């Protein structure tokens, strides 16, 4: 018996010491500020960490369509809604879910908007499982995500002091000022009964997002931003079927590009894949009207607690004006 227990004990001790090393290394390499320069991955999406706790009412989650299509500061300017975009480029749904969970640790949103493009991002069942597994490990032990940060460690990293102080006046929005024409016009949603399949890993995480919101009694709105390159009627059918199954509202803006007055020769940055700033302003205006009509979200503009949002609005407008002017002078 002793002969069997001793090796087992050795293994346990070895693993315990290893976990101590891993914890210590994680503590050192994890970014201490929410800025790209400090090594935080997707820092723009983590800008909410620098906001006051429980001040953001709308969480916008999804992939690059979110930060290209919606500008939370426009919602603030016109309706007094506080929103933040937590979308990242080519995001997978497990990350969308993870981001939402993290967001809700700091904030208590009154509405979650899920942009649905990420629902169709899959590299096949097996690769999805493999990726999700690694993401879970990264979440449990951020050392695996930030292992490469040893290259830029500063003395602060050894003190463990965390300062999430990089306020983003754009609130997660990523404006681009150049244009590339989409030549297909407004009629790209060709009616069909076909339904694009959604990979089971994505269905699983969609279910988790819905459950999460229900548990916290947060309304969930599913949207599809106008993107003729990415979107079609088959995808619309798939999301419609899914949202009907869960009893969720679904706003597919691809049917409303005419109504929004989107000029496809000017309002897309990459030929219909994403909006540029001009398109985003139109899409956000449309979304604002919809939210105003359907939801009872608070207007914080006269609330002193939100005075910093007015300051951020000025910065936001300066950034946009500078960008637009620069682009015009280039032409």
């Amino acid at each position: 018996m002793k002969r069997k227990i001793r090796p087992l004990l050795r293994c346990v001790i070895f693993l315990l010491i290893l976990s101590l090393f891993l914890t210590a290394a994680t503590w050192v390499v994890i970014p201490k500020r929410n800025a790209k320069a400090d090594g935080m991955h997707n820092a723009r999406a983590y800008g909410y960490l620098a906001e006051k706790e429980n001040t953001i009412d709308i969480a916008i989650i999804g992939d690059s369509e979110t930060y290209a299509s919606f500008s939370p500061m426009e919602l603030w300017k016109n309706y007094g809604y506080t929103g933040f975009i937590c979308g990242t480029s080519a995001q997978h749904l497990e990350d969308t879910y993870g981001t939402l969970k993290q967001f809700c640790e700091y904030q208590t949103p009154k509405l979650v908007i899920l942009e649905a493009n990420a629902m169709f991002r899959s590299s096949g069942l097996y690769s999805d499982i493999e990726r999700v597994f690694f993401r879970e490990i990264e979440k449990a032990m951020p050392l695996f995500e930030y292992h490469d940060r040893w290259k830029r460690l500063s003395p602060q990293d050894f003190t463990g002091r965390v300062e999430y102080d990089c306020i983003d006046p754009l609130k997660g929005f990523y404006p681009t000022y150049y244009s590339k024409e989409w030549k297909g016009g407004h009629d790209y949603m060709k009616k069909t009964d076909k339904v694009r399949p959604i990979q089971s890993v994505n269905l699983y995480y969609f279910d988790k997002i819905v459950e999460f919101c229900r548990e916290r009694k947060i309304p969930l709105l599913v949207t599809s931003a106008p993107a003729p390159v990415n979107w079609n009627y088959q995808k619309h059918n798939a999301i419609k079927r899914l949202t009907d199954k869960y009893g969720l509202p679904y706003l597919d803006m691809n049917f409303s590009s005419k109504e929004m007055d989107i000029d496809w020769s000017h309002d897309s940055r990459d030929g219909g894949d994403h909006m540029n700033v001009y398109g985003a302003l139109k899409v956000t205006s449309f979304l604002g009207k919809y939210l105003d009509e359907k939801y009872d979200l608070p207007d914080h503009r006269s609330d002193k607690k939100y005075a910093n949002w007015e300051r951020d609005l000025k910065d936001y407008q300066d950034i946009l004006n500078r960008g637009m002017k620069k682009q015009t002078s280039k032409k």
Partner: protein
Amino acid sequence: MSYQAPLFLLLFFPLTLLAYQLVPQKHRWKILLGASYAFFWSISGKLLLFLLLSTFSIHHFGLWLDSIRSDADAVIRAAEKPQRKALKEARKHKMRGVLALGILLQIGTLLCLKYANFFGANVNLIFRGLGMAEVIPTFQWMLPIGISFYTMQAVSYLTDVYRGTVNADRSLGRLALYMSFFPQLMEGPICRYSQTAEALFSGTPIRYESLTRGLQRMLYGLFKKMVIADRLNIFVNNIFNDYHEQGGIVILLGMVAYTCQLYMDFSGIMDMVMGMGEIFGVKMPENFRRPFFSKSISEFWTRWHITLGAWFRDYIYYPLSLSGPLKKTTSACRKRLGNHFGPLVAGTMALFCVWFCNGLWHGAAWSYLFFGMYHFFFIMLANLTEPLTRKVLDALHIRRDKGWYRIFRILRTCCLVCVGELFFRANGLKAGLSMFRKMVTDFSIPAPQDLALGLDRYDLLILVVAVLIVLMISILQEHGIPLRKKLAAVPVPLRWSIYYAALMAVILFGAYGIGYVPVEPMYAGF
């Protein structure tokens, strides 16, 4: 799923180990078989069917060969002495036919899946050249993972049954496991049935010693693969994909870096494979023996991808050079050309076939054929000039295996191997030739910032230190120092410190995650 993937290392492999250890010994092979098929499915999905067909086919043909032999043996024993020779001849003839059919099925599948488009494209090229329409369509066939490896195992099994060196296996399960054992499925080593089948089937329990030794070797492999090879990948890709923009010196560096990457990747994965085998009590043949200490190209191929070289030797070179026509050629040439050059004629013919197949085995492209012919040329050249070299060295009193001449030979072999790898990695033969031309004609000194090519100074530091560690270990091994035995003898605190250092090095300095492209084991694509 590849061997360095977290899902494999942290879930699949530990679960397999656990299941293996928990079930009774006689059922353990079933766990290994199930895990192997799950592993195959995770990479190739429905293409598992090809592996199954291959396994069924060799099982059937093995038994067929065996039954012909036993039936014929009974008849021969009962026959009169004068008739026995004719009966033996008839048995041999029949068995040869069955063997040929069995091999044809294996090689035919490989040829169809891997080479059809290459041959088709070249035939179409000829037709186009003659002003005729293209006749062969392009096929969109997927290649099952490891087909080049398991096909060779299948052929070796059938040939060994034919030769009588192994008995045909009646157990389909055992044969299936021999064909699919998951650690060796992706990149080999190419095992013979007699080397692994029994150990795989025996269900040797996992002992603390085998576990720690196996994990130790896996860790070393992981270090080579993730810290060195995958980091070099960025640098190598930038040079080879954009060689038009690079000067000769940068291409030279790219060539050396790729050779290093390929070695660290392939030998690193092999270390992991051997480690996994060791845990299950399966001793597989080594595939590497510090190849960059070779003094000639021939020796290099007895140290690099050893099991492939051994396969070509046993199943192509020897059968060809010992065949009737080549034997006759040898005796005829020996009379005319003497004892050295005489046998070389037939030997060279067999060698040509070996290198033609070796090149083609690596891939269906002219660059791979060139790679094979390149090595054939230098081996042939060394054979032809051997008497002259010996005379010159004797006259100058130079000993080939000692001192500076030995170092010169090692460096010369390294240079030749590196140039071969340049063509091997280049995006086509044309690109390879163009890169080689640039390397020997363009000596413009690059600016230091042009040399980085995706690597920063920290990456370079890690690379230098890691390569030096591997080099030191290799030198000690080359001098016959049993490092693993020595490591096992050091006190636990020191030994564990080494393990922790290696583990943390892989985790912290490994080229994975954001900012890196995942690199699948390189030989898995061949």
